[in-house]
């Protein structure tokens, strides 16, 4: 029982202090339960929460005065106070008599403190329910005794299950309107158990009640004497909900790197699971680098140890690279580090989810571009059946495969609600468009922990999901080299490849500004292009070089700079007559008039490649067709 305060007489300071200290000591004993209420329109959710606040004395007299006035203006229950008006906060809601956004309420009893998420029942507002469920330990599913189990009841129970809620209260409300009938209650309870049996709930407690009159909310009712279970409050006070996060392996997502001066480098974050002590070995999840916890820093002094839920700053014994989005973890039980995984996804946006589209994926501290590579199936939330689908609409749920640009550190959501969750963000509007719960990693990704790696060519290439290569386009001026290279680069880029095009124009204006058109200069020109290509290949890029490069020797020199298979010669073979007739820049005309010296094909030779990897005879073929050919060639040989 909570301390009772004297309300008469004038207590002394000592008495006040003693009373308050006793009260605070009691508060410290209380555990916290976060729950949400869900159900369909008019089931009486807001009334139930108003009733909980009212019965636990959280409603103040001045709020009651406002309530009395508002009840006359908007009330739906005649002369009584409309308890729902206490919690329906926004004007639009009060006018329409519905709850349109999730709201959080606070109350406490002598045993527990409660945070309630009041979530809307309207079908189109499912995203708000998922929001409330993401932080809840328990869900109260309201059912109107007159209407029984509805499609929304199933939907909400399914979402609660999907978001990892393991404790359900089935509140059969408005039991007064069915004459407090046990038969009605039993039928609804049986219906509920029948469809919820596969949803993985640990406890399902059905309670008949009338939120409006308070029956079985905090007090028992004679009219429901046939019911021998707990009241709602009794159940909420006693249901065990500890997720045991502290007993799980250490997961410390690095949120913020603190570097106030040269002598201090700390990693701030909230421990997602497990515990950590001074001297504990840890590894950096993404790099696999090991270290030891040197200090656990807080403003209240260093801690010997800390556990799940605490916000601390860790100092490591070694100077190793760790940035936001990485995770410090237990060396023996590591999380998965992968770029591809399967997840359940709830879609929140008006614009449907499209496989292949790029979104930003965000976990508690990490962020990376990601796309859905496959929609495996959609889940019918009424029958829970799996259906084939091409996209997910607003409020739909599906199972998808995702691919991220950077490796992600995670645990399956079923094992850890903190490290297994993510949201998807639209890159253009910044709207939060979906929420995901990771099931497991895919393919090579799973259970292969990243060993400490040097950053080198294979590592960079791996990061970009491609084999770096130089695509060397050679051919006469006007043969179509740049046109084909441009289209190819556009396509590769759209595909998420990392590319760069080098051509005469962008090099002649800068790097090669000092070179003229003597033979010596032309050789130097090609040497520089070759060297730049080599650096870009080392950086992991696909490099498209578009140069006339008429001499076999020069092309051989460029080829020799990179490794075998990193140089692909593309001969854009267009006859002189065709090029001279096209003459897009008017150069042939000038050369033929003798105004340009050393012009390839006119007064300087072009040496055709002897055995190019790709030989495009352009006459009669479209640019698209030839670009296709190059793409196919690259795919067949595993470059892309």
């Amino acid at each position, binding site marked *: 029982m909570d301390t009772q305060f004297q309300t008469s007489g004038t207590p002394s300071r000592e008495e006040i202090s003693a009373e308050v200290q006793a009260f605070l000591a009691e508060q410290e004993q209380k555990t916290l339960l976060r729950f949400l209420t869900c159900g369909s329109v008019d089931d009486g959710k807001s009334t139930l929460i108003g009733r909980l606040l009212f019965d636990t004395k959280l409603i103040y007299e001045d709020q009651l005065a406002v309530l009395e006035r508002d009840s006359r203006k908007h009330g739906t229950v005649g002369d009584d106070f409309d308890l729902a008006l206490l*919690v329906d906060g926004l004007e639009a809601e009060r006018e329409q008599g519905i709850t349109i956004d999730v709201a959080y309420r606070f109350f406490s009893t002598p045993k527990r403190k409660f945070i309630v998420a009041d979530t809307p029942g309207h079908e189109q507002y499912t995203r708000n329910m998922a929001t409330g469920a993401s932080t809840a330990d328990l869900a109260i599913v309201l059912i109107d005794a007159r209407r029984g189990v509805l499609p929304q009841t199933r939907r909400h129970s399914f979402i609660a299950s999907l978001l990892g809620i393991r404790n359900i209260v089935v509140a059969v409300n408005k039991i007064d309107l069915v004459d407090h009938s046990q038969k009605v209650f039993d039928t609804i309870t049986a219906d509920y158990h029948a469809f919820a049996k596969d949803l993985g709930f640990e406890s399902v407690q059905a309670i008949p009640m009338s939120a409006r009159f308070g029956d079985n909310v905090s007090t028992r009712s004679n009219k429901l004497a046939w019911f021998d279970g707990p009241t709602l409050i009794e159940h909420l006070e006693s249901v065990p909900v500890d997720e045991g996060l502290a007993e799980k392996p250490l997961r410390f997502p690095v949120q913020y790197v603190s570097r106030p001066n040269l002598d201090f480098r700390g990693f701030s974050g909230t421990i997602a699971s497990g515990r950590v002590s001074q001297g504990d070995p840890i590894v950096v999840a993404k790099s696999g680098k090991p270290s030891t916890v040197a200090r656990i820093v807080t403003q209240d002094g260093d801690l010997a140890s800390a556990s799940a839920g*605490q916000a601390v700053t860790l100092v490591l014994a070694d100077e190793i690279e760790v940035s936001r989005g990485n995770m410090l973890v237990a060396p023996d039980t590591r999380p998965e580090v992968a770029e591809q995984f399967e997840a359940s996804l709830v879609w929140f946006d008006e614009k449907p989810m499209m496989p292949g589209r790029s979104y930003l994926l965000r976990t508690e501290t990490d962020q990376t571009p990601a796309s859905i590579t496959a929609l495996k199936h959609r889940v019918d939330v009424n029958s829970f059946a799996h259906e084939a689908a091409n996209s997910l609409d607003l409020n739909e749920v599906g199972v998808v495969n995702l691919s991220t640009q950077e490796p992600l550190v995670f645990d399956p959501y079923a094992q850890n609600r903190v490290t297994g969750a993510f949201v998807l963000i639209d890159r253009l509007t910044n709207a939060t468009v979906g929420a995901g719960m990771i099931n497991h990693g895919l393919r090579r990704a799973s259970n292969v922990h990243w060993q400490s790696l040097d950053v080198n060519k294979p590592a960079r290439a791996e990061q970009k999901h491609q084999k770096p290569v130089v695509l060397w386009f050679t051919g006469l001026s006007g043969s179509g080299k740049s046109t084909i290279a441009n289209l190819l680069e556009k396509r590769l880029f759209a595909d998420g490849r990392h590319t760069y095009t080098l051509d005469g124009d962008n090099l002649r204006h800068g790097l090669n500004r000092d070179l003229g058109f003597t033979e010596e200069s032309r050789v130097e020109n090609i040497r520089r292009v070759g060297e730049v290509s080599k650096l870009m290949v080392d950086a992991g890029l696909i490099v498209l070089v578009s140069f006339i490069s008429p001499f076999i020797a020069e092309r051989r020199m460029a080829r020799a700079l990179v490794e075998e298979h990193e140089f692909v010669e593309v001969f854009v073979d267009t006859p002189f007559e065709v090029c001279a007739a096209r003459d897009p820049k008017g150069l042939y005309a000038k050369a033929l008039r003798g105004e340009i010296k050393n012009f390839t094909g006119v007064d300087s030779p072009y040496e055709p490649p002897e055995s190019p990897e790709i030989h495009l005879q352009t006459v009669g073929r479209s640019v698209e067709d030839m670009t296709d050919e190059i793409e196919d060639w690259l795919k067949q040989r595993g470059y892309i």
Partner: protein
Amino acid sequence: MSMTHLQRLEAEAIHIFREVAATFTKPVMLYSVGKDSSVMLHLAMKAFYPAKPPFPFLHVDSHWKFGEMIAFRDQMAEELGFDLIVHKNMEGVRDGVGPFTHGSNAHTHLMKTMALREALDLHGFDAAFGGARRDEEKSRAKERIFSFRNAQQAWDPKNQRPEMWKIFNTRIAQGESIRVFPISNWTELDVWQYILQEGIPIVPLYFAAKRPVVARDGMLIMKDDDRMELRDGEVLEERLVRFRTLGCYPLTGAVESSADTLEGIVRETLVARTSEREGRAIDHDESGSMEKKKREGYF
């Protein structure tokens, strides 16, 4: 070792402070000098220890704050060494805007709402911390912890981003901003309990003392300076009073109380039968008034 309720709230708030520092380029904390701001300041110091909070503290001075608030503010900035920015709507000051002459609505709009918007625009802050709590008022119960504001700094309650787990969508476009409420999930009792537990300094106005007050419009208004003139029939009395909430002195009612210790205040809160914002004039006109102000950019 399981955490107490206050430890959990503290950890949540620290997490939010760090998240903003890690993801925004120019955050600011709105420092109103009240008890919630004192708690916020304390949490911000904890979140970045041993570093100082990596953002400035902005006080929007309506020109009608209690004198003791200003003195306390300057003292805290001096002691803790944080970067304090004070902003006033100077046009309003020049025009002599005040609650006595312009009424509470016009004063609040010009000297608080507009001044705040002006200050945020002037400095180009992309995230602003506020000390609002969900238990304070009905429309606040529905606001997110990371609350999106469009380029006009307006709040659209029907188009809020879903806030899942502790994963916050901190992405904004040019000109847009986010208001962040790290103590959203605290109740008034939690705030007092925390102040007591941590020994957090607060403005002395919260403690009962003999103060010169006038009964006006159902409230006890303290005559804080000469700008307040007595109306016919009004009497200035020395009464033992304290304030449950602080703001502009002409708009903030005192309550009669003998609670002159933190424990006394906590005890009084526990037996209180009147909710906190009752002492503030701005919520009274109609019950949706806070929501209207928020849509316009009020904190």
